[in-house]
């Protein structure tokens, strides 16, 4: 159980929140919680640090506003539950928290929380309102993502040699700040979008033969994966390559890893890795490696079809507007994707043979430095 340095400070913050609200109630005011605005309008790109940051706008969440009341109540419930966890020295997963708090509200035909999708954003609200991380509130996400490669990590006093973890790898927990990197022999870190591709690379001993730390994200990377990527870059000064599908969703994963996400913009400074590059898949790869026959069509409506783009097209179009995608290479990449209306998956590289990705594709690209910024 990690002993986080500032438990007492967090408890104080929670108590201050409660006191303020109680005070408002006693004064006959409409009780409210002040929190930074987390919408797109209050997210800006910091071009010095190359990450997304939250702006200064704040909003108030009122109890006696029928549109806010339910969330207000939920915030109170979560705040109080977190105080309980900290006091008891326990850490709960966000799903456990959800089940801890879910119950029927007397007199109404509704529950305090209908599903986890309701509690998760309230946790983020609380993090931003109090300016603390969820880990400080003794909340963790389910472990997601795995690590393979020539590095030894000390975790809670145990040393783990990640070259000796077979095809299983090291599960990446939600809190990695306390990891100590004891030793390593790595040339770079490679974050892979799909678990299947990571498994392919491990089977081909890619991590061993190329001294690569492979992190499999398993789709949208968890906070743990993002923080770990950042730590590897910061502490070991390793180049970071991101390997995703060549589609808008894959590029968005890259965007989140590199610059941070809108939702968690307040934590970008901890989670984003601005030095990361995209190794593939790219539209250029399609030509270069003759993958024309294994592309898939983009979903949704083309921007010229009238009524505006939808689905994949919309996401690609939106990304062309992101400040961190303004480089010529990225503009060209996204425009090509829209023009051709195609996407290409990592596993399309298996069209010739399974080892192609490990033996040819990745080494060639790294050697040539054929990345997108």
């Amino acid at each position, binding site marked *: 159980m990690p002993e986080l340095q500032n438990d007492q400070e967090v408890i104080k913050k*929670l*108590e201050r*929140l*409660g*006191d303020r*609200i*109680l005070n408002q*109630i*006693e004064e*006959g005011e*409409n*009780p409210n919680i002040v929190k930074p605005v987390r919408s797109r309008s209050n997210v800006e790109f910091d071009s010095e640090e190359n990450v997304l940051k939250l702006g200064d706008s704040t909003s108030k969440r009122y*109890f*006696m*506003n*029928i*549109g806010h*009341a*339910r969330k*207000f*109540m939920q915030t*109170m*419930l979560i*705040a*109080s*539950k977190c*105080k*309980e966890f900290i006091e008891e020295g326990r850490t709960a997963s966000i799903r456990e928290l959800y089940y801890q708090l879910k119950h029927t*509200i*007397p*007199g*109404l035909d509704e529950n*305090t929380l209908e599903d986890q999708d309701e509690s998760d954003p309230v946790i983020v609200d609380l993090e931003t309102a109090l300016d603390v991380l969820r880990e400080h509130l003794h909340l963790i996400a389910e472990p997601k993502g795995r690590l393979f490669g020539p590095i030894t990590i000390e975790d809670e006093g145990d040393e783990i040699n990640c070259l000796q973890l077979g095809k299983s790898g090291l599960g990446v927990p939600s809190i990695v700040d306390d990891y100590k990197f004891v030793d390593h022999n790595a040339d770079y870190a490679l974050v892979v979008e799909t678990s299947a591709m990571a498994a392919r690379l491990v089977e081909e001993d890619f991590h061993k033969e190329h001294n690569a730390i492979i992190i499999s994200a398993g789709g949208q990377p968890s906070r743990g994966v993002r923080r770990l990527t950042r730590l590897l870059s910061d502490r070991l000064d390793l180049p970071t390559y991101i390997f995703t599908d060549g589609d808008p969703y894959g590029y968005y994963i890259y965007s989140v890893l590199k610059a941070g996400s809108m939702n968690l913009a307040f934590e970008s400074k901890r989670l984003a890795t601005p030095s990361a590059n995209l190794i593939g898949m790219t539209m250029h790869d399609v030509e270069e490696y003759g993958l024309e026959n294994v592309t898939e069509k983009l979903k949704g409506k083309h921007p010229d079809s009238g009524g505006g783009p939808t689905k994949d097209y919309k996401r690609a179009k939106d990304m062309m507007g992101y400040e961190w995608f303004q480089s010529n290479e990225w503009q060209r990449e996204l425009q090509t994707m829209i023009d051709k209306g195609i996407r290409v998956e990592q596993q399309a590289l298996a069209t010739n043979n399974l080892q192609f990705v490990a033996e040819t594709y990745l080494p060639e690209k790294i050697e040539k430095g054929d990345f997108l910024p």
Partner: protein
Amino acid sequence: MSEQHRDISVAEFFEKNRHLLGFSNKQKAVITCVKEGMDNALDACEVERILPEVHVSIEEMDGDKLRFQIKDNAVGIDREKIPKIFGKLLYGSKFHKLQQSLLPDQEIMVRREGEVRLMEIGELCDDIVGVEGGEKTKEVDEEIKAPCFDRETGEISWRPVTHAIRHKNRNETFKVETTRGREVEVTGNHSLFTLTEEGVEEVEASELGEGDYVLAPERIPSAGEISEINVLDYFTAEELAESNWYVYGISDSLLKSIEERGKKIRKRPSPDSRRRTYYRLNGVEILKDSLDNNYLKKNYLPADKILRLGWGNKIENGRLRTYQVGGKETEIPLNVELDEKFMRFLGLFVAEGHVDKRQAGLTFGSHEKELVQHAETVAGQTLNLSTTVSEREHNSVRLKVFGSPVVRLLEKLCGRGARNKHVPEFVFRVNEELQQAFIDGMYEGDGSDAHPSNELSYTTTSQRLARQLSYLWNMRGVVSSWKERVNSNNISGGETKTYSVLVHGRDIAKSDRFDEDANRGMRYRMIPSAILEDSRIDDTSRVRVKPNKSGIFMAAGLGSNPHYARKFVDKAEKILNEENVGEDYYLETFRKKGLVSEEGKPSDKLKEFMETVEDLLSFAQSDLCLLRVENVEETKSPEFVYDISVPGSGKDENFIGGNKGALCIKNSRGQQGIGISAAGLYSQLTTGNPVKIYSKKKGNEDTHMFKVRIDTQSNEPEIVEDRIVDDYEFDHGTSIEMSIEGKYTGGHHSVKTYLKNTAIMNPYAKIVLNEPDGNTIEFPRVSESLPPMPKEIKPHPHGVELGVLMRMVRNSGARTISSFLKSEFTRVGRTSADDIIEKAGLSGKERPSVLEKSQMEDLLDAMQNTNLQNPPTNCLSPIGEDLIERGLKKELNPDFVASVTRKPSVYRGNPYQVEVGIAYGGDIEQDGTYNALRYANKVPLIYKRSSCATTKAIRETDWSRYGLSESGNRPTGPVYILVHMASVWVPFTSEGKEAIADYPEIVKEMKLAVQEVGRKLKRYLSKKRKKKARAKKRKKLSSYGKAMSPALSKLTGVDDDSIAEKIMSVLREKYGKASTEDSRDEKNTEEEEGGDS
């Protein structure tokens, strides 16, 4: 006119006018009888200031017969008063008001002296009644027939015209214009016809507006099937004598009959000649020498003699011969056979021909070779004429036809000069093929066949020709269009008017000679959706539909396209046959719309609807069609107007006329008050039983039972039995019992609904209904106070009609007109009396009783055109806001009621007052659009909802402003809207008193009242809505507050109960105390949107 009609027996009158009197079908008859009985009972109580208690019992008997009894608690009735109740059916005071007429120059189609003519009605009637003598009605004693439709079968046939009528005009006159360019000019009360769900109904011209539909003939039957014409029929004897024409081929026996039957006389042909011998036969003198030497030898006679002898049809294979200058002879057959070739030739001639003294010519374009050839062949072979063809300038070819009889004949048949061209009369009396051949010839000769617009048009400067052509098309089952144009003439500087008759689409294909797209030109054969207003199931975007089942379903809102509509039809038919149908969207829709029960059984509504569908289908197959009214405008009124009487095969009197194509025109007569006597007569005529009346006077021991029968010859009620009975339970009052042919049903138009509506408007009455199935419904009394009795007032001069005036004059004891006016009318003082007298051209000293009818009319005119103070309004009997609300509450149990009684107002000299009530929510079911409660003088109106002023007022109100949504201009939701018009003279749309005429001033007054209750409803609804929203919000917040109190307690260390209490107190401060909302609100909260505070 009335004189004529006194001669027909009352039974006959009733039979003819059943539909007008409210007995058009078995269901309606029951309601009408109950209505008349209820009216009597409630009136009797009100007059005696007794709180009414009326029992209505209905029993079913064998063979669609019912026995019903209406029993009141008034003071009973004396034997002597019985005839008064059963007063004469016919002589309503308003009788003459219904004189309905056409303007003199309106042409109608008649067959007179065997010939079909389009004649101005004025000319025809003047001819029959005589030009002199002002107002006149005369029985027609020659054979005149007019096309007349039968309402039941929709067939048009030629029926005798019985009367011609000319009378002074006392009404506004209107020009009604329809699509296809047709129009007719009539007096305001003259009925045209329209189609409603209840069938063909009459509609007065003054009530028509754009978008209404009127009936027109689609197919007028030909007036005969003649196959040849006799040339002599078209000439007078003088003309023939002058022309030196001879008829050859007369048989010996016929000629010898002159000798045998003729009387020998001797006379001098001229004063200085010697005497000679003549045979005189049928007034015709024939010189013996000529007969012996010439006629008998060569079998001929001068043509004029044949005509005078009346032998025109006795000569078979006769030939008409003429000798021209230079000895050349021409001969044509005496009887010309009418075949398609000849008819086409005539058509061509009407279009292209011209005649001068010696020759007739047809001018064709040089490309029209085929036509030239045709004309040449007919002229040569059929008519045995010599012809020449010559090329003329402008690329035209002229075919000349010589021979004076033919030239003269063509002139007679077709007219001379472009503007006088007309259709030969006999064309209206030949079969369809021959008529079509004639039409073909006309259009081939001079028509224009515009392919892109799918239109065939014939343009002429002869108005008569165009009119005839339009009627001729009608005989082919085609409703043609009419267009007029004024062309300025460059050469003469004058103007010429041209008239075009056009047909479209499939109508063109009637002819083999013009091929067109048969799918077009259907419009007037389609059914306008508007007809279905009352039985519409749902909204529709279709304006008109094809005349088949799926079309009608679409018009009723079932199915948005033919495919779906067919599925609805299919389902509906299966359900009606009680076949099993699967659960699906269609069945669900039927269920939602109340067409089938939960168990999937057909409801009364479905049965009624399907009957309507069948009726519309049979209409579509009838000889009639509907034309949309485009414009109605008031016109300058002439002094005299005209009418003819054409008793139809059924109960209809109608004929066909119009100057720009044919429309169906009604001449009807009837009266306003019908009363219980009509019910009695109906009973007598349908079951043969007399009416039974039980009466017990207040404070009298005996109950009398009278049996009353109406002598249908003398039109007098007769008491056939009068005895004291002791087995009839009675406190006091009158009970009327009769058996009738009728059908007791539920639904919208039912006795139950009628009584419920009566109960709402008469909340001080207790009404009990015993239904045939033994079920008893009681409509309770909720008020112990009767509304005040209206005061009787003298009539106001602006509201009086001639019949009333005449009766008043007869009954008045006043010695001068001046004192008559002052004493018998309200609002007439000395000054205004003098005014009226001066305007009427009288001295004022005349004795009222010596006034002639024409002076009376002048007086009436003057009365109506003199400015007078409005009549007093204490003669009205509104029931008041309180009673309206009580009535609505007790029968509907709503959440909210509001009502408005407007101040009295005046229209056309008649005081009236409008009351409106509204009831919302509670037990009122939410089934689509609003429910209407319509009343005239407290009597419910349940038929003809769509043509009622009340409906117009409601539909013209923007209900979205008052918190109700609308569907097709009608407010929707659980709401009843009550509109009551109280007036000394309610203007009904028809004699059946079923709907209030939508005079603009009345509609406006109703709208103001409707809007006033609308505002009240809006306040209620928005209050209710806000209250509901607040309550819901408060409830939510307090639950959330309680749910988060323990959490806040944990964060702050303060006791959670006290936190909860604090939160509640904050909420109390903001939202007030928790209210105890009723359970209905709780249920509905989910529909409300939670607005932000």
